């Protein structure tokens, strides 16, 4: 049996039907073709699927898909585009915050949630915000620099 779900996805209203065994990650990727959030573990331990739900970072794989009804979901696709990127995306580009790019969508959403709540974070704040997002390529250093650079740019 499929259940109807209506929610706001990247500022657009969407309607979809899915069974009661769906998580938000699969709902986005397999039903709505939104592939920015990545499948990294489906155990809530890698953060590659991080999205925003009502403005807060959440692991999409741990969210029961049907609980999204009536709520607002933002994925990396809703953050900005190639033509009009979010300053955070631009900072990740310029400061080499993305190597293989697989953790990047989740990393961006986790750090974006931080900046939304705390526009002037310290290095430790950034670290705390991304502890649940595993990156095997960068050693986190340039990711943290990217987030701090985006915060600095916004200050100017």
């Amino acid at each position: 049996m499929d259940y109807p779900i209506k929610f706001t996805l990247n500022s657009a209203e969407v309607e979809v039907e899915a069974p009661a065994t769906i998580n938000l990650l699969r709902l986005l990727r397999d039903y709505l073709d939104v592939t920015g959030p990545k499948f990294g573990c489906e155990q809530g331990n890698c953060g590659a699927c991080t999205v925003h739900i009502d403005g807060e970072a959440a692991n999409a794989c741990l969210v029961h898909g049907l609980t999204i009804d009536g709520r607002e979901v933002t994925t990396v696709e809703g953050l900005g585009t190639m033509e009009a990127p979010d300053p955070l995306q631009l900072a990740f580009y310029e400061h080499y915050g993305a190597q293989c790019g697989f953790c990047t969508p989740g990393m961006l959403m986790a750090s974006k949630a931080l900046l939304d709540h705390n526009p002037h974070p310290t290095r430790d704040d950034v670290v705390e915000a991304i502890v649940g997002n595993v990156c095997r390529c960068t050693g986190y250093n340039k990711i943290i620099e990217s987030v701090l650079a985006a915060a600095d740019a916004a200050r100017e």
Partner: protein
Amino acid sequence: MASTKQEVLYFAPASLEAALELLDQHAGKLNVLAGGTDLVRDMNLKFKVPPGFMWIGKIGLEYVERQNGHLRVGAATRMQTAGSSEVLRQQGAAVARAAGKLASPPVRSLATLGGNLVNASPGADTACALLGLGAEVVLTSKGGSRTVLLEAFFTGPGETVIKPNELMTEIVFKPTGKGQGSAYAKVGRRQAMTLAVLNAAARVELDGDGKCSDVRIAVGAAAPTPLRAVEAETLLRGQPWTEEAIEAAAAKAAEEIKPIDDVHGTAWYRRKLARVLVGRTLREAGEIAQGAR
């Protein structure tokens, strides 16, 4: 023979009454879904797909309030809410700390205190902290409510006394005030985003003469359920609050636990950590009680 596709039910009641009614109707066939961080993970990994889900995110169970000298925390209060609650940080420091140390921000925006208790993992962060705070939980069914002391709530790994038609609605404990303090500590296998190899919590009350008038000690990941170190408490209660007494209690706690070897560490290591972390939480709670921090 081919297994037939399982039809899984889903409900998202809008009120507590409706939720209790559903639990009553579908007794044993609905798993209560709060944050989902355990339930949905188990579903993903095919460990366990329940016959149905009932989501309680819309029935008003997220709150922290002080009432009749008690702190009452809604069972669906999320870790990020608990961790950043000023009331909890002041009057229930152990649980605020534990909630703030659990996993990562994208998990803390989902996971709930009630879920962490009902899941009954022996090393659950907030279970240990709340046990140390002497918390009780309110279990509500269509027929009424009952209150269960947390140490009587857990019966084994993943097992509790909650009945299929009951919903955990509230967590209640005595706040800490003047002359009282609580603390929580954990050792994991890395600096963050880690299950506890061992965790410990303590609540300490000191009287005007520098004696320990009451104390509670909880140790997690050290037995099939989070454990209260009763004998260690006995060594402290009514005695002068000294470093020697704390050391003796910590050593006793390390004897009381029943740890095992697993991927996170050996029983040997857990006993060592129990002594260290019980000592540290007692000291920190004592310092708070003395107004030293």
